[in-house]
């Protein structure tokens, strides 16, 4: 049984201009020890999706189910949810400066987090634990720094402190919402490295929300691509990058400047993301889709399996022959050529030629 199993989650917000349909029927699950990447652009609903689970989306009309170790998070009363939030599911937000209280010492804030869930721990013990946690997330001289205020920390150190806080009660699930977006490249690399190391050590499940496909490529196991409040595609990291089925996923991947094709023109997705108040009919992506067909204008595609094993799902009417395993192998081969790994490319090409149906072993 997965650690977190979300079924048909819908969240909408009534506003003066109309009802904002932020999340429109999303299902996904996360297993212990796995990293799920949720990727999407501004307004795709990726943040609302996870905040709803923690009761952090006030004013939203919520339907659906979110089973977390046997309890439905969406059916819990605020007091019950508070027991789980922080202790079993913790969150790391994008902006560490606004997530830390500016008037309290960093160590005090971590200790407070520990003590608010377990009153039997003395203040002294909690502070001791805060020192240990700060050391663990790579803050130099944690015994001194525990008495610093947030403004005395740099951006990267604040995010480390947030991670320390998120880890303080050994949660089963960590939700990281754009944790490195506000950081510089070299610091981002430090933080991703740290998150991955701690996640592996503790065997925690991690949901990584980001708009950056580079971060996903770095650390995710599975990927959920969101568009206009729905899941466009759900697949393993490998399939997402090398055998994407949904035209939106493909479009995203093609619009990123790629080192091997730097002289070429970029291939952007045409148009703008839709308003969540006035969604297009049928598939919400159809006005921007280059493969649009008649039925896309009227019917909304469901998230259905497109691969052999059923793990790869896409909400698109395009035939799934386009993503058979041989295409995956072909994609890997082309990729190997681009990267200059000609020996590997040749081996894959041979395997494709020999057994057009069962070359998945070569890819793996």
């Amino acid at each position, binding site marked *: 049984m997965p650690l977190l199993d979300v079924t048909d989650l819908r969240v909408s917000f009534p506003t003066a201009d109309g009802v904002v349909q932020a999340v429109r029927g999303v299902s996904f699950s996360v297993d212990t020890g796995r990293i799920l990447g949720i990727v999407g*652009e*501004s307004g795709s609903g990726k943040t609302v999706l996870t905040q709803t689970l923690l009761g952090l989306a006030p004013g939203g009309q919520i339907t659906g189910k979110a089973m977390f170790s046997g309890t439905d998070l969406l059916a819990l009363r605020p007091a019950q949810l508070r027991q789980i939030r922080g202790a079993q599911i913790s969150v790391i937000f994008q902006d560490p400066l606004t997530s830390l209280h500016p008037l309290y010492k960093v160590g005090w804030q971590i200790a407070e987090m520990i003590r608010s869930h377990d009153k039997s721990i003395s203040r002294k013990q909690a502070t001791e634990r805060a020192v240990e946690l700060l050391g663990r997330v790579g803050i130099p001289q944690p015994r001194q720094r525990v008495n610093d205020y947030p403004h005395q920390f*740099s*951006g*990267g*150190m604040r995010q480390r402190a947030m991670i320390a806080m998120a880890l303080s009660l050994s949660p089963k699930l960590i939700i990281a919402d754009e944790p490195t977006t506000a950081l*510089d*490249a*070299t*610091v*981002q*690399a*430090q933080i*991703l*490295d740290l998150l991955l190391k701690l996640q592996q050590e503790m065997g925690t499940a991690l949901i990584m929300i980001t*708009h*950056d*496909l*580079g*971060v*996903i*490529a*770095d650390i995710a196991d599975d990927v959920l691509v969101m568009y206009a409040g729905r899941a466009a595609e759900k697949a393993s*990291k*490998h399939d997402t*990058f090398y055998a994407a089925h949904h035209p939106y996923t493909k*479009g*995203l*991947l093609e*619009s*990123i*400047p*790629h*080192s091997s094709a*730097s*002289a070429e*023109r*970029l*291939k*952007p*997705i*045409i148009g*703008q*993301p839709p308003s969540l108040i006035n969604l297009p009919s049928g598939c919400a992506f159809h006005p921007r889709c280059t493969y649009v067909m008649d039925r896309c204008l009227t019917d909304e595609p469901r998230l259905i399996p497109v691969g052999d094993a059923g793990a790869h799902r896409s909400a698109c009417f395009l035939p799934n022959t386009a993503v058979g395993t041989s295409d995956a192998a072909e994609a890997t081969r082309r*990729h190997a050529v681009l*990267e200059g790994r000609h020996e590997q490319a040749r081996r894959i090409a041979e395997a494709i030629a020999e057994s057009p149906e069962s070359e998945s072993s070569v890819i793996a």
Partner: protein
Amino acid sequence: MSAFVDPEPGQSMITDSLLADDVLVQVDNLVKHFPVKGGGLIGRTVAQVKAVDGVSLTVRRGQTLGLVGETGCGKSTLARCIAGLIPATSGTITFEGHNITNLPRRKMQPFRREIQMIFQDPYGSLNPRRRVGSIIGDPFTIHGTATGAARKKAVQELMERVGLNPEHFNRYPAEFSGGQRQRIGVARALALRPKLIICDEPVSALDVSIQAQVLNLLADLQDDFGLAYLFIAHDLEVVRHVSDSVIVMYLGRVAESGPKQPVYETPRHPYTAALLSAAPAADPEAAAARHRIILTGDVPSPINPPSGCRFHPRCPKAQDLCGTEEPALEVKVGDVETHLTACHYPVQTGENLADAARAVRGEAS
């Protein structure tokens, strides 16, 4: 965008003299220090933020110079000095042979037509209470080049050129999405047909699908109007995509500069190497195969930069010399003449900095 012509070894002298005419902007040893005032009524200057501390660069006609570096490296300050928005502390900025450093307002006016800027934040850089048509028409009014119906026509042509609907002339910025607003900023910058547009993080605030649209637009405009860009971004792949040559800045100084290809493919400065290895690639196999150089610590304060080489406290290759003597920006053995590096111990081919960095951090490889 036009490809950079890599000078052949041995021919570089000829190429240099040929290219000399191509120089649009020449910046020499530019310094910009901001005073830090102490407390009290008098507010004595107690320190200097050395935002830009001796930077030289050349922007060539119709080409794109990429400027990369992390927060606080001085790249935006440098851009604002070149655009004449803030005065330089010392050094010279030459535009088409004219020294335009710290010119008085009136004398600067004709040059402002030639140097325009596109800003990062498409929300903050457009006045929300003014109609788009009048925002884009501002340059015509200020420089008195078109009025009345002629101005409206010129604005609508510009809107069409940057992919906006000319009928939206009377709308307010709030009625446009982020990508469209950035197009408004581009139209405004383009209005007076400048020779140089300084783009300060023009696509950082945009979603990737929209980012590609704006990058393509900038490329088209460059081809059509022969524009030169000084393109500032922290996204290395974006800079690689648009630039002909690149400058890497660290704490107010140039760490490495040169044509795009050698800088990206064979970086010589350990900082460039670390930056390149740290940039997330949207490709799981490349990400797995890469030896990521994880640096220790953060960028130090530009108020009190480290002695010697400013990168030495974070550098996996640092030795005693690096802490005492500042390295000169010079050509390293085996590099093309235009590829300059400020490092005492430049990265060698095949060198594994990732392991060195791990050793510095005290972890087993």
